[in-house]
């Protein structure tokens, strides 16, 4: 321990609090990274992993707590960059139209003047060769022409490269998500080498084998807090999953007896040619679980778009969709609450293709009462509502249709707990009436409400859990790849 204390602190975040509306994304999290160590960061969805990463790289200012780089208290993107913090994001952040060398030029402002192209090329090529020996990437090609794995390799190499000074801390968010086992092993080996030379790495991965074998120290986060921070040797796969999970609160509640009666109302063959196939039966509440971004939303979109014409008005709607990202693909911001609610069921509300205002108002009044939309007037703009109430309107939009199946794309993100309880109640009664719900959720509490759960990993369904099997532990075990230590 004394040896650790003597080492230089590259980044120290202490007591960090960040809130988004009613949601506490970080609730007093501590994360100290010393020079020459690799820290593995694990946790389930919404545990606060990406929020703390964004605080460290300067993209988010903490609402409370202290943040210092090499002992100096400061924050902001440029401060983080000046202190040698680099970040490889999960979503690709290269310019797809530029070549590898040109992207290096964008990331490293020092590359300019005479023969910058040559210097950029040699910089990236050297670094690529160092991390991924034997790679076959042509650095004159544009990013568009590279495979996903090659793009990821290039981004990693550009982040580790340094012209005047090497980076002090490199944050890798799911760096191996599209690399095969061999490349992942090369990267892990390079991380060890980089750390041995005095650099630091913060590694986020859903492959626990990687975390266990590569990290010196593992930090486990849950509900915006750090719940475990120990040397990697003190963990094994099992204890790590247990640390992430919530063993205390395993409450029981009445779950509808699984009634797989009749033919499936929806089905889908195994995705990406492997894993399990998907079926849904009448009146079921089906959960799609797994870590965020592992193909759940894509599965929902496929289910929906296959059954909805883009050219002709559908006579009888069978399937409705509740969006998760309200501002991006849910609400129509210029419209009133009422118009936002009624858009999906205009067919029922009109005669001769003309909307009947009276019937529309009636529908609005009915749903306002039923789900308690807190507004004095349904003709107010949708943006006058709080996020939770906007989400309720989106639920009402889907439920007001005649659709027998409702798809939900993580709709409760950023909704306060009171609203959630109200919506759960409505969902249960609708399911009892024979509606089928397919629910992608990143929250374990919601997944546990479902009758049956499909766990997604790498775009395919990795496991199916029924009834009592739906526990946090089982879901976590299926979403994390135990895998060989890469």
């Amino acid at each position, binding site marked *: 321990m004394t040896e650790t204390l003597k080492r230089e602190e590259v980044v120290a975040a202490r007591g960090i609090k960040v809130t988004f509306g009613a949601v506490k994304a970080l609730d007093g999290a501590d994360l100290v990274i010393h020079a020459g160590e690799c820290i593995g960061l694990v946790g389930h969805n919404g545990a606060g992993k990406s929020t703390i990463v964004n605080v460290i790289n300067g993209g988010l200012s903490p609402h409370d707590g202290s943040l210092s780089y090499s002992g100096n208290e400061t924050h902001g993107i440029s401060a983080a960059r000046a202190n040698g913090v680099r970040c490889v994001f999960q979503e690709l952040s290269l310019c797809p139209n530029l070549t590898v060398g040109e992207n290096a030029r964008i990331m490293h402002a020092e590359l300019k003047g005479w023969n910058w192209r040559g210097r950029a090329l040699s910089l990236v090529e050297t670094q690529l060769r160092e991390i991924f020996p034997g790679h076959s990437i042509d650095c004159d090609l544009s990013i568009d022409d590279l495979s996903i794995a090659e793009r990821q390799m290039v981004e990693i190499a550009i982040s580790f490269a340094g012209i005047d000074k090497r980076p002090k801390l490199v944050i890798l968010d799911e760096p191996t998500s599209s690399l095969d086992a061999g490349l992942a092993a090369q990267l892990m080996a390079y991380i060890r080498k980089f750390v041995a030379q005095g650099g630091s790495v913060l590694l986020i991965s859903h492959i626990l084998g990687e975390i266990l074998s590569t990290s010196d120290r593992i930090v486990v986060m849950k509900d915006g807090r750090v719940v475990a921070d120990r040397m990697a040797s003190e963990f094994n796969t099992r204890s790590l999953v247990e640390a992430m999970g919530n063993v205390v609160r395993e409450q029981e509640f009445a779950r509808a007896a699984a009634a797989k009666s009749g033919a499936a109302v929806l089905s889908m063959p195994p995705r990406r040619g492997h894993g399990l196939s998907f079926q849904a039966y009448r009146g079921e509440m089906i959960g799609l679980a797994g870590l965020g971004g592992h193909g759940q939303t894509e599965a929902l979109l496929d289910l929906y778009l296959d059954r909805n014409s883009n*050219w002709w008005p559908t006579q009888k709607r069978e399937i409705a*969709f509740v969006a998760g990202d309200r501002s991006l693909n849910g609400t129509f911001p210029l419209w009133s609450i009422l118009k936002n609610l009624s*858009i999906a069921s205009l067919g029922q509300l009109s005669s001769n293709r003309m*909307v009947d205002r009276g019937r529309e108002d009636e529908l609005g009044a009915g749903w306002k009462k039923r789900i308690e939309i807190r507004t004095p007037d349904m003709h107010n703009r949708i943006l006058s509502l709080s996020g939770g109430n906007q989400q309720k309107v989106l639920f009402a939009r889907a439920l007001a249709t005649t659709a027998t199946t409702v798809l939900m794309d993580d709709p409760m993100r950023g909704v306060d707990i009171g609203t959630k309880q109200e919506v759960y109640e409505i969902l249960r009664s609708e399911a009892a009436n024979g509606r089928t719900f397919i629910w992608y959720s990143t929250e374990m509490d919601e997944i546990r409400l479902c009758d049956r759960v499909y766990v997604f990993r790498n775009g395919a369904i990795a496991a199916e859990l029924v009834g009592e099997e739906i526990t946090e532990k089982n879901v976590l075990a299926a979403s994390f790849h135990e895998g060989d230590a890469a």
Partner: protein
Amino acid sequence: MTLHRFLMAKPWIWSFAATIIVWVVTVLFTGGASSFGLSQAALTFAAFSVVVGIGQMFVITLGPGNIDLSVPATMTLSGTLALKLMDVQDGMILVGLLASIGIGLIIGLGNYVLIKALRIPPIIATLSMSFIVQSVAIWSNRGLRIKPPETLANFATSGLFGIPNVALVALILSVIAWILLEKSIYGRWISAIGQSTFAARMAGIPVDGTRLVTYMLCAVLASVCGYLLASFSGGAALNMGSEYLLMSIAVVVIGGTAVAGGNSNIPGIWGASLFMFLVVSMLNTYGFGAGFRLILTGLIIIAVILLAGGRQSLR
């Protein structure tokens, strides 16, 4: 505060207020002698801008990137072919109108097929289409300038109770368009698509079908306008549509329709069309030339878009 909100909710008021000011100033300058003639001329010429403007507005409502550049060519072709078909016979007036509507339907369909099949942005698809349409018009226009049937010409140039007939036609079309936009399912759909195409798709709206109908509607309005304009001016000319390319976009923008899509405004098109004509005549009566007129038009467009853009960013 309430007044402020009222004005924000009704952006077309600005264009009407501006129109009235310009009208009063012009009439005062000419000593009131011209007030009747000026109003007549304003209504007549505004009517043509209104008809093409409504079509363009429907397209712009579909959201960023949606625009129809084939409007002038469509007007020219429709005017030319309709006059040729009617061949100065009064009995053929209706046939000519149907033919021009048919031309509009075909061009609109062609536009959307190009957009969809070649996956090119509407601006370049409608541009390529307009080249071809323009060529057909040149080809068919060759030779003599054919006059419109006498009854039709009389109709287009006369009026009812002092209001020009073309303005009445434009008014009827505006009312229909207003009903479509405000009362029908279709109106809700295009507004939804303009605000967020993806959200519209996920709410069960047939996006491609709706967009196709909209492009066809725009082309039909343009061809009807071409038919009227050719009848009004005693024959079709090859450049008769050219000034309506920028004009159709300008009246939509000045009229308070959101360029970002989703929000459209029919009264504003009337205000903007009258305003654009009156500004021209005002500058003419003051003796300013075409140069000042154009500069002022441009500055007005930019000022309006700056104000409107500011409103959106406040949200």
